[in-house]
């Protein structure tokens, strides 16, 4: 899968671990040889941009709605998508990507209402679920296993 295009789709940045996990995933996947794009809302991308000002970890940082528009209009697409979700909107955006893109979806379900939220997912995806808000370590460990499998 080296060279495969990966989209990290960030939702509302209200839950702190999203930014650190997005930076971590972007860096690790890039080092594994994946072509990584990080998409988010204005607030989510600004948080990332300030945390990684020179773009060492997130090399391609783009607007979420523009990215979806490009996929819908067939100007761009991805092989893999990691969709961050801690609310119904995040799930709704991921369902949209599942419908418009050929990407394999990994749903990263985190935050305070993970069980209820994970149950609302009806599209085909691999779910990575941790009920964490401030401490990213458990989610990082689960994603390490996913990346290990992807690198094989």
């Amino acid at each position, binding site marked *: 899968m080296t060279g495969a295009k990966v989209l990290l789709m960030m939702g509302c940045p209200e839950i702190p671990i999203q930014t650190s996990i997005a930076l971590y995933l972007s860096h690790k996947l890039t080092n594994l040889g994946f072509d990584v794009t990080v998409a988010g*809302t204005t607030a989510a991308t600004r948080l990332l941009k300030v945390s990684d000002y020179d773009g060492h970890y997130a090399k391609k940082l783009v607007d979420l*709605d523009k990215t979806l528009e490009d*996929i819908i209009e067939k100007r761009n697409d991805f092989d893999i998508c990691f969709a961050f979700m801690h609310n119904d909107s995040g799930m709704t955006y991921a369902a949209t990507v599942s419908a418009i893109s050929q990407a394999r979806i990994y749903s990263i379900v985190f935050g305070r209402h993970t069980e209820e939220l994970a149950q609302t997912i009806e599209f085909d995806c691999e779910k990575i679920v941790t009920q964490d808000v401030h401490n990213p370590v458990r989610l990082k460990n689960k994603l390490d296993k996913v990346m290990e499998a992807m690198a094989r």
Partner: protein
Amino acid sequence: MSCIEQMKYTILLDRISFKEAREYIETNSDEVYYVSPGYKIFKDYYIIGVPPIAMGSKGNALVFPYTKPCHGSFVLSIENEDSIKEINRLRETEKEKEPASSKKDKSLESSKASSTSFLDMWKK
């Protein structure tokens, strides 16, 4: 920012789940149509949503879901010249999909019927 936010719109429901938005549109519209995620309306807004996405008409107003990452889903209503065009486009698309069937007027036909057929189509 999509053109929607620059148009004159009415918020019928705010900060709800997408499922609640769908149910409201199905229950409170004169006619209900179903579209796929990414369906474009008003020149530059691509509908975000979980299929099947319900779009409704109420008189000349287009009733549709609008999802924001930080604020949940909304049900918006827009009534102007463009909404009439959008409703007509939905009617035409429906006719092309089911040339032999009657329109999805709630008084004549349950909106559930359309929902079921769309879901079946989606699963194929």
